């Protein structure tokens, strides 16, 4: 059973393959994402994040989830050499860590309910578990220059995968100082990690590092990455190919 809802400003898809699944089981997952959104949305005036940013809450009044997210954000900031930071102009926007974390909590919910074969996809960041029809989950890496195409097909299970990227740019941009040199800007960085929370936070931070980001991922044990630059050239980590679908 597969369902999609637009929540937190993005499409969220849940597919559970186990035959015992009911609509209620999947609705519970969406309900959970709605509560997360109600707490952490910077677009909702009555969210806890908005209250904090307006100075209406003292630290002692923060919810447990908020304390967790703030602690995880700080830990991530340290682990990524400051490249991940939810503070900006004195306000916080933890959405960069909330998404991966929420997907991971949803995965725990489904596992606790006894499901083994499923995926949860929130805006292109995905947690997969088990398999579908006897195969590993097949995940395409979207072509950043053409949303209808995939440029890599992966076959993975019990892992998280996340992609960070910029707005799609024209392919005719060049550096006026070096008009004949191909642009080396990074447009897309996909990270495979032990779970979607880990993959998402490190994809976000590594993307902000520019060309060095893929080396940051290379140095992280248990993570692989696939980076696409503005010249449509991809660079990938040494262990990445074992996740590529063998056809």
């Amino acid at each position, binding site marked *: 059973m597969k369902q999609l809802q637009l929540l937190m400003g993005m499409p969220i898809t849940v597919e559970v393959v186990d035959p015992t699944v009911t609509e209620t089981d999947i609705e519970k997952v969406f309900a959970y994402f709605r509560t997360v959104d109600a707490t952490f949305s910077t677009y909702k005036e009555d969210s806890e994040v908005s209250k904090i940013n307006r100075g209406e809450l003292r630290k002692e009044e923060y919810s447990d989830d908020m304390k967790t997210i703030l602690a995880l954000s700080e830990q991530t900031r340290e682990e990524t050499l400051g490249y991940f930071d939810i503070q900006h102009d004195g306000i916080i926007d933890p959405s960069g860590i909330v998404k991966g974390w929420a997907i991971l909590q949803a995965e725990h919910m489904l596992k606790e309910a006894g499901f083994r074969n499923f995926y949860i996809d929130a805006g292109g960041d995905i947690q997969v578990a088990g398999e579908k029809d006897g195969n590993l989950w097949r995940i395409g890496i979207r072509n950043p220059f053409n949303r209808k195409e995939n440029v890599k097909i992966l076959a993975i299970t019990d892992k998280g995968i996340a992609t960070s990227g910029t707005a799609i740019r024209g392919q005719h941009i060049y550096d006026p100082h070096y008009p004949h040199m191909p642009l080396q800007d990074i447009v897309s960085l996909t990270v495979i990690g032990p779970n979607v929370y880990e993959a998402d936070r490190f994809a976000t931070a590594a993307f902000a590092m520019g060309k*060095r980001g893929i080396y940051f991922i290379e140095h992280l044990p248990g993570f692989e990455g696939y980076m696409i630059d503005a010249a449509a050239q991809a660079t990938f980590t040494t262990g990445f190919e074992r996740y590529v679908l063998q056809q």
Partner: protein
Amino acid sequence: MKKLIVSIVIIGSFVIYSFIHAHSGPVAVVANTPATSRSSSSTATSTPPPPGATATSGSGYNDGSYTGSVADAQWGFVQVKAVISHGKITDVQFLQFPNDRSRSVYINSIADPQLTSEAIQAQSANVDIVTGATDSSQAFIQSLTDALSQAHV
């Protein structure tokens, strides 16, 4: 005696060679550094910070801690934190991954591995799911990039 002369000639040639190449371009200078880094991976943490990171030397700074940009050293990436008190640099610390397993890999890597590149190519196989950047993560990156640019002023 013969050995001594030979040694002097070799060392002399090397000095002249280094001198010539030091002026021909930065590439030759950089090319000498892996050998010294390779001699002992444990000395990595005491390697002086790269030029970019030491650009904060001088006086008249606001007190506080400042994190430098990540600099590409031959054996990996380096980043330092400068601590300023009373307008002067009082400490320069190496920032490390708090994760020990990461750190050991990080320090032990003599040089960045040569990663494989390829031109991207459309694939035709069917997929269950697609990963790609979402608009919300784009906004986050923009915000993050902006915050970073402010931190570097």
